[in-house]
């Protein structure tokens, strides 16, 4: 049986290594362009490590059992009458509980950080969703209104959103932050861009016939470029 355990562990390690390669060699997440998404990616990798461990364990035991203990269909003996093992059952109740609570704590910390205003007052942008366009209003700059989202780099931005018809959802994949624009109420998120470039705002909540094409351009620019854009006509 000792040899069997060694084989099982080896099988589990092989599966875990393969999965780790799949997790690392493909680029599963878009490159982060915000402070918030950096933090979210940390949670993602933490959860991924745990997920690889659990899946390797389960699949290794299934494959190993079938490999070792498969019998022909006409075999008519029974297996050993093992009804349970209290110690083992306590372990597989307690260990997952600890793991998920760890994920919960990490998530709660990141959630709190991502939802907290910094020491300097954030740039305010009001987002209005309407079938099937986005409108961005800059109340700090004479209510400048634009169909394109332009943000200064390294400046925390507070998005306050609402909708004039049905529910929409504001999402820039590279920012990692998402929030529904709901008629009748105001919702908020914070984004602090960290990379210059062009991105896309997409609507993530089914909002009707034009849902798939409800997109807008998002640009992250330098502070100087932002000021000249926001003051221009």
């Amino acid at each position, binding site marked *: 049986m000792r040899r069997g355990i060694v084989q099982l562990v080896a099988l589990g390690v092989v599966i875990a290594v393969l999965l780790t390669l799949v997790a690392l060699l493909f680029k599963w997440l878009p490159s982060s362009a915000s402070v918030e998404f950096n933090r979210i990616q940390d949670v993602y990798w933490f959860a991924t490590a745990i997920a690889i461990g659990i899946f390797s364990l389960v699949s290794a035991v299934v494959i190993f059992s079938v490999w070792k203990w498969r*019998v022909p269909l006409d075999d008519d003996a029974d297996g050993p009458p093992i009804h349970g093992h209290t110690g083992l059952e306590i372990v597989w109740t307690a260990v997952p509980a600890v793991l998920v609570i760890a994920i*919960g704590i990490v998530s709660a910390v990141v959630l709190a950080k991502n939802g907290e205003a910094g020491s300097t007052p954030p740039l305010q942008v009001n987002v209005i969703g309407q079938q099937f366009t986005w409108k961005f209003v800059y109340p700090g700059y004479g209510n400048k209104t634009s169909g394109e989202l332009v943000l200064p780099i390294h400046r925390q931005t507070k998005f306050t959103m609402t909708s004039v018809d049905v529910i929409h959802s504001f999402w820039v994949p590279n920012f990692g932050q998402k929030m529904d624009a709901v008629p009748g109420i105001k919702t908020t998120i914070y984004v602090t861009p960290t990379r210059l470039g062009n991105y896309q705002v997409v609507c*993530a909540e089914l909002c009707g016939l034009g849902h798939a094409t409800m997109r807008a351009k998002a640009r992250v620019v330098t502070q100087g470029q932002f000021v000249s854009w926001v003051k221009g006509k």
Partner: protein
Amino acid sequence: MTTAQHDHVGPQPYPEHYEPPHGPRWRLFFGPGLGRALWMTPLFFSLGMFLVVGLRWWWGWPPAFDWTVIVAIGGMVAAPVGFLTGIGAFDYWLHYISGRPTRPEDHSGHGATSWKDYFRVNTDHKVIGIQYLVTTFFFFTVGGFMAMLFRAELARPGLQFLDSQSFNGLVSVHATLMIFLFIIPAFAGIANFVVPLMLGAPDMAFPRLNALSYWLLPIAGVMFLASFVAPGGAFGAGWTGYAPLSVDGPVGNIFFNMGVQWAGASSVMTALNFLVTIITMRAPGMTFWRMPLLVWANFTTSLLVVIATPFIAGSQFFVFFDRVLHTSFFTPDGGGYVLGYQHIFWFYSHPAVYIMMLPGFGIVSEVISTMARKPIFGYRLMALSLIGILVLGFSVWAHHMFVAGMANWLRVPMMITTLLIAVPTGIKIFSWIATLWRGRIHLTTPMLFALGFVTMFTIGGLSGIYLGAVPIDIHASDTYFIVAHIHYVLFGGSVFTIFAGIYYWFPKMTGRMYDERLGKAHFWLTFVSFNATFFPMHYLGLRGMNRRVFDYPAAFGGLNFFITIASFVLGASVVVFFYNMIMSWARGPIAEGNPWRSHTLEWQVSSPPPIFNFDEIPQVVGGPYEYGVPGARHAVLAPAREVEEVPV
């Protein structure tokens, strides 16, 4: 389907079929059955229409002919009642109410001797079980075709051959059919056939109610499909039907609002029936701790159904009232609360995920224990973890709303309860693989599907942990990551267990064996194409492809094309299944009473079982999974005094 019974050798348990006194030919149209339903349905529709038009005319509300209201009241309330009356679902009760003679001992509507009996109101739980399964697999096929249609559309970015309304409609109706007309009722069908047998009972507690709950189901299915001919097209607000989109959208949405009522009523009636059956009709000696885990699973599922389903019924009525009566439950203009819809909807629809999963847990426990020839590992903890999921399942609904704009303080508590559900679920997974350990594993088709389930559901559970963690969910919510997750849970989870259950009980239901080679081919084809279809969706979602879209960035084109091809193979794999089922049912080798050498009660009678299941009520003397214990038995089918209790 009939040859199975005619060719069946061995004791022929069916008594002489009761034939009603034949009158002239008009009996066909006045006796209970499809003939009478054919004219009663339009009659009741007209009554509903006259009620609506008459009241509007009398009140002076123009226009008197408002087709939205006529279709809603005449078509979706009155006509179904007419259909049910016509088919005879109410006959016994109407006789009773009107003081006409009833015959409680009349079993003419019980059991099937020809295929025609499957198209009548039948009170035999075994007939109803098969009616459920054939109906649900019909809708599974229709829903699958819809999926292949919109996958074909998604093979390339931009619109190919659909327009955006029909795309949204196909996506919404696909999900609705698969949830309300396939997974939930398919489990009800399997449980209908198996649970009374497992309990040692002659039938369900309320056989007429059981027949009624089956006949509500096709009504809901026809309603969902009929929405395609509504002006403006099928309901296209997703199966979640979020207000206010579902209030403002085309009139097809009311087909969803009302169809859910019929499917929901069917579920609630069946669940009540299961609860009463399980509580009151267990054979002597069948304590709760001796019940097979499938019975435990259906007990907890039924509790979930009766507690949760009224919430979706309410939410859909409110949406319907917002549209037709111009109330404003969920529309902001009249002071309504938009997020209220989501809270009520998910208060049902999250427990609904467990309604769609717990019966599968039960099936897998039966299959793994029998096929590994070992007692289920940690039986009591397995039953208790079902209760744990039941209780926790009601405290997690708002994890569907982490980005919905609900109160911020609600996120962390909902995250913690959500993550904690991984604990009872983990107990189940670990107990199944511990049951495999040192077993004598018979790799039959049901076992392959059960093991496929254990691994695929683990992936679905783990992606659920990603989504339970609020920060990851904020990024991944409403993307293809969600689509991947729900299909790993509902296809890799629920559908695999339905297949496992169908193969496992096929010999019991039909009296014939399925073809093992075709079964294995079906499994491997499904397993590979399922993963090829849904695994890449995790990637697409995280990379930025939002869900429910007909168009997407060109960069995702290659992978979407691959997924489309894989989904066609997945569709083709179902053809292998149907071929196997139909051919084996017609001409498969005759099955023994207990081909798997299982200990549970349904296998101790002939295949198919006698009309009232047991000649004598069996005596339960031990646990259901005592494989390998010398001399252990679950039950004896002889008078109780002749046997001694077997120590467990």
